């Protein structure tokens, strides 16, 4: 403890603030811990208050530092949770594949985020939808992949993916996809402001996204 590691990112990577939202028990903390430390504990505590972890990620030879914010999912803690939405770069909406009501509640989470994060252009904000617990058996599954894609289409969200924090399936990919989506949104914002058009190679990012489970939902 007394070593006192400086928590700030040591390099000058772009720092991206990622907020993970979703109902209690869908696996927000587990996704974060799997991504950051490749560790999974089925019986880890539910989150109280707010926690965050930093993790560097490299995409197309560019390094980014993700600051991932994990909050308590219960409605009760709304007023203490929402101030942390401000300044987010990416919002990860999560549900559990074996929990239909957590899927239905994504509308609520999306609206809560948009309201409190103070986003100017709703449509272009980089949301990514993550259906966690893809390790559950077919009998236990309550949300199909088709329902996920339909919901994303209806809500104008381009990126979605099914993950399992338990068996590590697609977790790295989910965060990578989130950053790629952010890059595209950024470049679009830049383009609309008629400035620095040469910063990002757009086509490449998009083709990456097409490899995801949610390819049909990409916008062009």
């Amino acid at each position, binding site marked *: *403890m007394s070593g*006192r590691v*400086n*928590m*700030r990112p040591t390099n000058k990577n772009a720092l991206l603030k990622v907020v993970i939202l979703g109902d*209690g*028990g869908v696996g927000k903390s587990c996704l974060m811990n799997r991504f950051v430390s490749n560790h999974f504990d*089925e*019986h*880890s*505590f*539910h989150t*109280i*208050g*707010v*926690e*965050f972890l930093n993790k560097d990620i490299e995409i197309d030879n560019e390094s980014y530092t993700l*600051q991932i914010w994990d909050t*308590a*999912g*219960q409605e*009760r*803690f709304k*007023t*203490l949770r929402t*101030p*942390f939405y*401000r*300044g987010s770069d990416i919002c990860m909406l999560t549900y559990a594949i074996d*929990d239909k*009501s957590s899927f239905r509640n994504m509308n609520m989470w999306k609206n809560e985020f948009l309201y409190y994060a103070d986003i100017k252009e709703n449509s272009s904000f980089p949301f990514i939808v993550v259906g966690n617990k893809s390790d559950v058996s077919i009998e236990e599954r309550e949300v199909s992949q088709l329902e996920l894609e339909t919901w994303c289409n209806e809500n104008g969200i381009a990126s979605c993916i099914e993950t399992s924090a338990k068996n590590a399936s697609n977790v790295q990919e989910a965060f990578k996809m989130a950053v790629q989506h952010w890059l595209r949104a950024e470049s679009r914002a830049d383009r609309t402001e008629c400035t620095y058009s040469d910063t990002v190679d757009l086509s490449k990012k998009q083709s990456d996204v097409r490899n995801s489970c949610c390819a049909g939902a990409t916008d062009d």
Partner: protein
Amino acid sequence: MEDNQEEVLEIFTQDGVLITTAPATYIHYLNNVGTLLIVEYPNSNLTRCIEWKPLDLTIDSDVQDQEWTVVSTVERRRTYSGSLPVDVNRSKHLKINMNDIKSFRVSHKNQKLTFRDGKGDNVCSFIFQHGNCDGLIAVLKGILKTIVSRRDKHVYCILDDIKNPERQQLDKSFAELNLFQEQSSAYVWKFVKNFPNRPYEATMEAFSKITDIVYRGPEHRLMDSEVHNILHRSLEAIENNTTTHSHDEYELIAHVPRLPALKEYPRGRPLSFEQWKALQDSEGQVEDVEAVKLVIFRGGISSNVRKEVWKYLLDYYRWKCSHAEQQNLIKQRNEEYFIMKLQWRSMTKIQEDNFTDYRERKSLIEKDVNRTDRTLDYFAGDNNPNLQVLYDILMTYAMYNFDLGYVQGMSDLLSPILYLMNNEVEAFWCFVGFMNKVSSNFDMDQAGMKEQLQHLHTLTAFYDPEFANYLYKHDSANMFFCFRWLLVWFKRELSQQDVMRLWEVLWTDLPCQNFHLLICVAILDTEKNILMENNYGFTEILKHINDLSGNIDISTVISKAEGMYNQIVDAEHLTDAVRLIIGLPILGNTSIVDSKEASPDISDLTTNGDTDEVSYENALTHSFL
């Protein structure tokens, strides 16, 4: 023994007096119950003493001296009441010559009496478990010349000993009169501080004080030079302050009042089985509830008696009930529990389908039970039956208090209770008792949590304005990083054993309400250097505080918090805002938003009334702009 030959006149005796502060020589008597006496020794120049003897001394007066040195009185305490025979073992008494006492303070609804030496130290304090100390005060007033301190109406200053006229001729300095109590400089500073804002009132107050001295003290001529000195110094100070700082003539007196020094309060021994039994009468009633609580506050509870005592602390058992009444109560509570449990157990599938709110609660409880303390053996493994009990209790609580329902964090609070009780019904009712103490943590609008965070800030600002200012400047005045500490009373920061030790201390409500906030202040005080040296901002502070989990030495923290509490209570500039938080009576002479004085920048957090929520959210939001 020579004491036996000496003539002794007992002016006053009172049983059931617990000693909580004592001179070093008598430290082994601390936290024991005994008899307080006022004694006169006619053969020794009418010397009067305050004496105190532990209960056992009477009962075991035939025990050899050498045994006393090795056997602890605490271990052998037993119940004893009724009038005590004249004591032959007077040499064992705690004895304080009354000439060494300069003032005494009455507190805790006249149940606590503290004698002071006039140099800022408490000589000894007593808690009167049978009634109060009114009788003793009356006697003291009869034999001593006392006046009530102007600064603190609970303090009696001893002017002199009327029966001993020679002493009056001794060097009686201004300070010894004790009108200004421990530090006359503190009064002067108050005057200096108030002068620019309220020059007229401050001056009049100061002069009225001096008038007191002049009229009441017979040697006023001797004091003239002292008075002159003080006035001279204070005027000098005003000049210094106003000339060096002022460009705005009424604002910049920058003197920050100091707290008394932090003293050590070593932890005591835990309440033992023998002590506990001794404190109950044959019927099982506990007479001296405050005595029990005090021992628990000082040292916690031994594990062999913790289970029983928790039931009292958590209002499942009643302190003043006989065994028979207790049995009755248990029976009632048992029936009541199973009625409530049956209510949700008998819910049909269709009922459930038509009851969204219930379904959601049930689902969240299921999820949280599965992730509560699973690393402890008691809850480990698949299909652990204790998980089912945890679930049943939380479901039943949701029926017991449907408005509150289930809120995340409750399973944390229940876990140690169930672990200790290992009994569904007992754990349920103890959990109810705990929830009654902390239910505001789980308010729908989180108002209780916000208020606590604000109180925590007020305390921090009072205790350490520099640190509070640092937090403000680093967008952290919302104190949000302490949210988890407060919500589940450090459950996530401590081991199961440590959290049990802390909770039982906090349940005593000693030494004041909201002591858990002082625990926070104590931990923050330990960490503040790291935070400030590294120039941490809000996110880094949050991370640092979250990462303290598992690295907090709770005994040290409790001791420190107790020391800080005493610093705060003894502070000359104690504000009403702080008094309110720690449950002291309001004096009405300082404004509630006083913490602004210490740290002018934090005004947006310390306002009260309707703006609370707005200011909190502004402040919290402010952190992320």
